[in-house]
């Protein structure tokens, strides 16, 4: 074998990739990161360019997806993946990114922590995960939405939108009969105080168009300190396309280059990682199980807040909620509540049976009293598979679907939710919709830690039967709770990287 290019090659510069790189660099390991994106698309853009796109991409007819995925920023991030990954969907919208920073470019930035109960089936203990949560939280900067009138208690806070605050007060005043429903201020990876290279949130509400001040965490930001390290090397426009095992591992890229290292760390995102491993795994027609969270969007009206002035706040999640609606182990959902007044108006006007002028007037009149709740089911309520025609070895196709009995449980959920909305003084408006599987981009569980067989991996994310090949993205989460998953992916990658940093880089040789 020729001289390896590094101790570790990390594929992908998203949240998982940087979370794995930092502990390895800190331990003095040499890391080569291959990124299919580059530094293009700087933050130095006018609002006009962010809202409409440098090429006016935004002046296109509304395609009906969520406002978050319609912005020019999101299109620029998602479309190259759609064209180049070779992954298609069948009742499933494959979402991935080849851009620097991966999906963190359009991540909703909501923070959730798993607890011991959530990870009962994982081959790790909660203490190690909690340590990593702390590492990540310290690094990315987290703020809680707080009601400014009640005063802050020392921790970093961002103002809570007035309508969200009103609903939260109602919740606290009229406690639910049981503890099945919880409503709390959302925790987001948004800075309320400036730190090196990033400004504090300016409450302009441009979040969906790509935060101009860098207040919302994006894994690009972590590449700056990494690149200052002499042990770290980042190569642009290197889309990994093949993995070959010899004495160590060799990564082939789309431009024909090869890089080798004793250990490879895959952080290409669940779909990207599956595409890269497709030739090493016995994917037959049944396919690779993919967990993703079914997502329900519900518009809500708060009559008490009608005709009030909107308050300045960010346009990411204001409140978090969790609800247990049945006795089954997976009869629970979590969710996020957004204030519509801070979201782009067009997406809502486009659905009104009024003219545009009257539509905007109506929107401006009621927007400040509107909320949208996005409800996430646990991943086991999905039945999605990554498949490939074994004989023709064609590209991957993901078939989307829902678990058996999902519709019955959905009815139970709707009933419980209606009761809770009523208690909170909210009117559920028509237009609630279940998103097509995949669109939420909460993916996990293709190569779970602790599972045996060719599709399993070790507690260190090392793929069974392929020593030296570690996976740190969502692929290895054994199950997908309904909670926001990015923070957990980052913490798990941090945990694995700390473990790998302890082992000798050359032990695999």
């Amino acid at each position, binding site marked *: 074998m020729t001289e390896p290019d590094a101790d570790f090659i990390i594929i992908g510069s998203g949240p998982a990739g940087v979370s794995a790189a930092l502990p390895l660099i800190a331990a003095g390991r040499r890391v080569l990161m291959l990124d299919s994106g580059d530094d293009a698309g700087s933050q130095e853009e006018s609002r*006009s360019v962010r809202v409409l796109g440098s090429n006016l991409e*935004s002046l296109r007819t509304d395609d009906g997806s969520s406002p978050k995925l319609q912005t020019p920023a999101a299109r620029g991030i998602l479309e190259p993946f759609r064209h180049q990954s070779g992954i298609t969907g069948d009742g499933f919208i494959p979402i991935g990114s080849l851009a620097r920073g991966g999906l963190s470019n359009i991540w909703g930035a909501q923070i959730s922590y798993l607890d011991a109960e959530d990870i009962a089936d994982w081959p790790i203990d909660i203490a190690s995960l909690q340590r990593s949560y702390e590492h990540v939280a310290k690094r990315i900067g987290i703020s809680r939405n707080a009601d400014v009138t009640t005063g802050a208690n020392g921790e970093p806070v961002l103002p809570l939108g007035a309508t969200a605050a009103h609903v939260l007060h109602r919740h606290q005043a009229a406690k639910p009969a049981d503890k099945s429903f919880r409503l709390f201020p959302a925790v987001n990876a948004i800075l309320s105080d400036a730190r090196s290279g990033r400004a504090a949130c300016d409450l302009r*509400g441009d979040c969906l168009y790509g935060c101009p001040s860098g207040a919302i965490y994006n894994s690009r930001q972590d590449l700056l300190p990494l690149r200052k390290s002499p042990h770290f090397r980042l190569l642009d426009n290197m889309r990994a396309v093949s993995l070959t095992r010899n004495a160590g591992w060799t990564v082939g890229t789309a431009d024909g280059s090869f890089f080798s290292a004793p250990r490879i760390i895959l952080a290409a995102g669940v779909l990207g990682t599956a595409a890269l491993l497709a030739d090493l795994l016995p994917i037959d027609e049944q396919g690779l199980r993919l967990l993703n969270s079914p997502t329900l969007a519900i518009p809500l009206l708060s009559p008490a807040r009608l005709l009030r002035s909107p308050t300045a706040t960010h346009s990411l999640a204001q409140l978090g909620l969790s609800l247990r609606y049945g006795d089954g182990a997976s009869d629970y959902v979590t969710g996020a509540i957004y204030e519509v007044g801070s979201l782009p108006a067009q997406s809502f006007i486009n*659905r009104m*049976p009024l003219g545009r002028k*009257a539509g905007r*007037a*109506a929107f*401006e009149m009621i927007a400040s009293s509107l909320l949208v709740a996005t409800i996430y089911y646990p991943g086991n309520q999905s039945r999605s598979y990554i498949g490939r025609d074994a004989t023709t070895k064609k590209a991957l196709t993901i078939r989307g679907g829902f678990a058996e009995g999902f519709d019955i449980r959905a009815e139970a959920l709707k009933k419980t939710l209606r009761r809770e909305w009523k208690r909170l003084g909210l009117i559920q408006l028509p237009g609630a919709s279940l998103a097509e599987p995949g669109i939420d981009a909460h993916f996990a569980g293709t190569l779970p830690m602790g599972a045996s067989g060719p599709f399993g991996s070790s507690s260190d994310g090392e793929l069974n039967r392929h020593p030296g090949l570690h996976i740190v993205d969502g692929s290895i989460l054994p199950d997908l709770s309904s909670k926001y998953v990015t923070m957990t992916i980052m913490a798990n990658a941090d945990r694995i990287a700390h473990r790998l940093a302890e082992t000798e880089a050359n032990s695999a040789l």
Partner: protein
Amino acid sequence: MAPRLIITGSTGYIGARLAAMARERGFDVVELGRRPGAKWRIGDEPAASDLEGAVGLVHLAHCWATPPEAAEEENVNISGTLKLAEAAKTAGVPRFVFASSTSSRREALNVYGRTKFRIEEHLAASEAVPIVRIARIGLVYGGPRTAMYGLMAKLAALSPILPMIGLSRKVQPIHLDEVAAGLLALATGENQPLQTFVLAQENPISFAAWLRILRRAQGNGNLHFIPVPLTAALLACRVTKLLPLIPTVDPERVLGLAGAAPMESSESLRLLKLNLSDPAMVLAGEFGQTHEEQSRCEAQALLRYLGIAPTEIQLQRLCEGLRREGLAPLGLSPAMIRNPALLALFEPPANRTRHRLAQALYLADLASEPERTPGKKAGFFGAMLAISSDVLLFPLRALLAGRYR
């Protein structure tokens, strides 16, 4: 001192362009004729002081109010032209250019053609012969859409099927700029032979083909004709004179179209060094420009309808967006462009995404988004008014929305 050039009829379709071109080329232009405080009208004896020292005179003025078959002395066009030419000769003006027409012939169907022919004859017999140059001008097009050209352009764009006389009549189009250049060359050039010049396309085309060129240049499709006999057309003209409230059509215009033989122009064009351009190409360019103006006006109306005072950048964005989506021009009527509030009568609901007007308004809304101040709220009553009028007008809009689908 700049050489002086005298132009009569300088406010007309050809005259205005000629005067502008002459000034551009450094001539001191003296305009004789219909101007505020003008000293001279066709038929008047011109003041010698106006004529002296000029390098040339181009006579474009024509009086349409003369009784058709009046005797020579009473026909102000004939007597006035002769008077002017002889006065120019006396004042020492070296060149007198008379603007005649390719319809000029003894047996022309229309009075205009016959009159021009009679003037040519009288000039040939007058004392002014040594300075007279006759320019027979073909069918002039281009530039401002006025006069005969404006009428034809409008007609051709009117509908894909047109009742029309004289379809097989051959016409020889020439662009306004080329006519002006030709007249200027005749009025100022040295050593031009004493002859009748023909300013017209060498290869005549049928009148039907000419109208098709005009229609296509305006971005419309093909044109089909229902041939109308001349007698029927003349009868129709008389009827228009009798009926109140509809525009009258002068039979003179109809007769002008009704029949003439093409004239040989290659020798004249060579002498005047005129290289005539292809009308289809030139018109595509001129009307294309107008398309842009039209979509710009429409973009402005759309933004104003949405209650936005458009800025330059927003207009540019919207024009670009409309163009990309194939929505420009939308075809809004001039009344709608002047009063954008009228759009309320035609606007479909915003969720009708297949509707062209709905799409255009969506783009207009988006184009103004970057400059919008977040959190700005309209008044409650204004909003209620907008919403309730929207709802009340709905049945009417359902009927009218088809217009811009």
